[in-house]
């Protein structure tokens, strides 16, 4: 590692003022500041590898006070900053458009309190989703949001992206499970909202959730704990076509059932999962639904029968019930690792995230198939079908620029169709850099102006996470250098 005085005073390794680096080092310790270009490579992108931008430095604070001190330094030196959790964003949420400093929350990993009786836990932002889950084993409670990235992603990141997961149909997304936050503003001041409701205060917690680091740096979260259901039924149902499966989904909801999960996997993704895990999925079917019913034992049998009848009516070929907790767990592992399994099918892949009203699922699925043919790109599908949330996965080779361009254009067309069908360009992965240009298609200029006004109230100098979430001049300028992502005409 280069010595601080060697490299910074020479001014060759970083655009940040030597003075600023020194101040950062004095706050978090020299070993917790990276500024050498070779150390920074890892931080130039996240799970969306198509877009990259290198930060000028990275810091690893270990508590809220340090985060606040770091923000004050940036504020004084006018250095842009961007908070980062595990970096599992699939939309380029961690790409620092303005360069500047990336503030890592991954050293803040303490679970500060678990209060089962009042049903909340207090965690630092860097606590991983499954770290909390593990701490709650045996308690009868859980933190309901369970994104498929939960073994890696941080609760701070979940809050910043308003993460979802397979169980949001019944339990809601992250915002429904955040009771309070402590956050550091761009000028280094610390704000707290919650955990007890205050009718004499605006719902700052509600707007901070899903704000992708553009309003404040979340440092501590009071999350709601939800009692685990006392009984579960997890089903794997195979359908001859995707359409049959989506029709069954609509009818289950119309019958007044709210399953805990209604997950769809098409034949393409089943092939990948089979190759990876040999779970025994049938490969000669159009789609498989993973249906989970939960609640009280006394009612589950009835719900199970209703569900079976509906699936049969939609030509279900095979209905299997997980017979043990292990079988259930394995089924979920397959579903949650499905995306990673795609790695076996193709050198690169890009997972899209869009949402339509649930009843429009058959239409969007058809459109995705059509786009796949038109662009000659293989697309396999997983979907949180109960929410109308699709995740088409585009298979390609990143080394071939022409393919990358086709993937980007195809993705754009899928999302435009989501908008046209009354949905949204993202259900849970967020805007990041990937969807900045599409914000202008989903919202009118007045709506975007309102969003900018909110940002102005929290982050008046715009130093925190500049150019992100709501497109502005800086984002357009940056996108201009990235014509593939839709900036250039």
């Amino acid at each position, binding site marked *: 590692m280069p010595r601080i005085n060697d490299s910074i005073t020479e001014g060759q390794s970083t655009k940040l003022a030597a003075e600023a680096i020194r101040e950062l080092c004095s706050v978090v310790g020299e070993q917790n500041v990276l500024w050498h270009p070779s150390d920074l490579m890892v931080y130039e992108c996240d799970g969306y590898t198509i877009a990259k931008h290198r930060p000028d430095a990275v810091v690893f604070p270990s508590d809220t006070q340090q985060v606040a001190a770091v923000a004050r330094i940036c504020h004084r030196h006018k250095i842009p900053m961007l908070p980062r959790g595990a970096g599992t964003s699939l939309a380029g949420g961690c790409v620092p458009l303005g360069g500047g400093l990336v503030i890592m929350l991954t050293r803040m990993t303490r679970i500060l309190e678990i209060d089962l*009786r009042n049903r909340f836990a207090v965690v630092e932002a860097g606590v991983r989703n499954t770290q909390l889950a593990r701490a709650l084993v045996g308690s009868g409670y859980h933190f309901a949001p369970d994104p498929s990235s939960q073994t890696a992603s941080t609760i701070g990141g979940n809050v910043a992206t308003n993460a979802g997961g397979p169980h949001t149909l019944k339990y809601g997304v992250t915002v429904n499970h955040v009771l309070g936050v402590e956050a550091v503003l761009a000028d280094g001041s610390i704000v707290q909202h919650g955990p007890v409701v205050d009718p004499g205060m605006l719902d700052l917690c509600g707007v901070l959730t899903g*704000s992708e680091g553009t309003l404040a740096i979340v440092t501590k979260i009071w999350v709601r704990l939800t009692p685990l259901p006392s009984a579960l039924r997890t089903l794997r149902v195979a359908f001859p076509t995707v359409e049959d499966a989506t029709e069954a989904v609509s009818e289950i909801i119309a019958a007044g059932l709210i399953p805990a999960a209604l997950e769809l996997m098409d034949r393409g993704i089943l092939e990948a999962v089979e190759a990876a895990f040999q779970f025994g999925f049938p490969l000669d079917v159009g789609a498989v639904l993973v249906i989970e019913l939960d*609640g009280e034992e006394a009612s589950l049998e009835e719900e199970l029968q209703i569900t079976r009848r509906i699936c049969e009516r939609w030509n279900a070929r095979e209905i299997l019930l997980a017979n043990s907790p292990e079988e259930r767990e394995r089924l979920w592992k397959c579903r949650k690792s499905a995306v990673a399994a795609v790695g076996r099918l193709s050198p690169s892949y890009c997972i899209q995230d869009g949402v339509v009203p649930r009843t429009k699922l058959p239409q969007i699925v058809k459109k995705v198939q059509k786009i796949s043919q038109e662009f000659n790109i293989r697309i396999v599908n997983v979907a949180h079908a109960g929410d*109308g949330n699709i995740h088409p996965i585009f298979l390609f080779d990143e080394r071939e620029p022409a393919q990358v361009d086709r993937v980007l254009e195809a993705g754009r067309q899928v999302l435009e169709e989501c908008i046209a069908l009354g949905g949204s360009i993202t259900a849970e992965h967020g805007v990041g850099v990937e969807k900045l240009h599409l914000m202008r298609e989903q919202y009118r200029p007045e*709506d975007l102006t309102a969003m900018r006004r909110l940002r102005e109230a929290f982050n008046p100098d715009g130093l925190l996470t500049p150019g992100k979430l709501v497109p502005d001049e800086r984002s357009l300028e940056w996108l201009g250098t990235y014509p593939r992502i839709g900036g250039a005409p």
Partner: protein
Amino acid sequence: MCEPLSAEAAKKSEKNERFSIPSIGSNSRLTVMAQSCPYLPIDDIVEPADETSLATFIAESAGKGNAIYPVGGQTFMALGAPGTRPGYGVRLDRLRSLVDYPAEDLTVTVQSGMRICELDALLRENNQRLPVDIPQPSRATVGGAIAVNWPGPRQVRYGTLRDYVLGMRVVDGRGNRIFTGARVVKNAAGYNLHRLYIGSLGTLGVVTEVTLMVRPRPPVHELLVFPIANLQLAAQAVERFFETPYQPSVLAVLVGRRWRAESGDLPSLSSSAPMWLAVGFEGREGEVRAALEAVKRSFPAEVLREHASFSNEVADKFAQTIADFPTAYQARSEGESDELSGNGKVPILLRADLLPTDTLNYAERISQLVPETNMLVLVGSGVVQAWISIPEHALGDRVDKEFGHATRELSGSLIVGYYPAGTRLSRSTIWGLTGGNTSDVRRLMAHQIARRIKEQFDPQNVLNPGRYIFD
């Protein structure tokens, strides 16, 4: 049951409707009727024909320095300090249509002037509902319910409107029309701006249209009401029940004699007990039965000695009676004197938000401070609502100091939800802004951000000036 479109208002409008008054000009897109409202410095209520005319009207009002006071069903006019600047009431009775109801998507989009009971009737057709408590559903409007966001007995299981609003159309204090959120159950594009309008009493924008997530109506609802001798008994029952895996849909302690009067023809409360414990379950037959068994197994024998039970519609009706607690007094006794007023005393409604485990102790404390209090204690979700009666001269002081102190000791928040018009009570007392630990910089910071947000969306302070936490 749905009352016809605000009966008195309709009567008034026949007599007084006129289409041109000097300060508004002649505009058929705005119906103007003379009507005063307690708590508001207005003589007229304006009813815009559509969102565009509302937006124009707000923009013009901002230019002229007139205030705008959005009103809905007027069930919660006593929430918030009196308006500080003269202006117009704005009512959205002409914006009350169903916009879209794709029942299989579990969403509904309506204009915000729609009454809650009208919404409920629509949802019933598909055996669905919005499972949050809204007091006085026959009068309250969707927009008003959002502005107030008052908690009720079913919050313990279903949360509040914040958990159901997916998107909105709003006109802000500049007259800008904003669309926020989406019409789908999951959306991560952009800020959750709509969260700001829920519970902020119409001070950031006038909500014109809302998309709500709805849920299937559960087939069975059973509600048990146990007369009990004291709060300790309630605490024991709740603690023991908490060990079971069952989720009540209603969990509340009803304290005080008033409950007997409120419950009308419901026989259970005829017993002479000082308080009652209400616990309800919804779902399929089997699970509700199992939960009721768990109640019998876990509650102390002293509690189980006597109870009344209600099923389905009757249970719904009783749950609504509990939800109506904050507004029932006004609805019943406007103008007449009763046990709460007289002798120079004025009735007020306190609402404290606390950790659930603190609610029963807090309720105990309140009854020590003011004997004979009528309270609704939401033990599961952490809210205490109390009707108390205090001599007017001591009001502000006692709320800030005694009750405020008791609340702050538990890190809770305290607001005043009702006071008679004309009572001297400051905005900071009403919203619990005084006292507190002024060294609590994090709270001050939150208020500073709230003020900046207000400046962004309503720079001229046109919307409900003085009513909410803003100057």
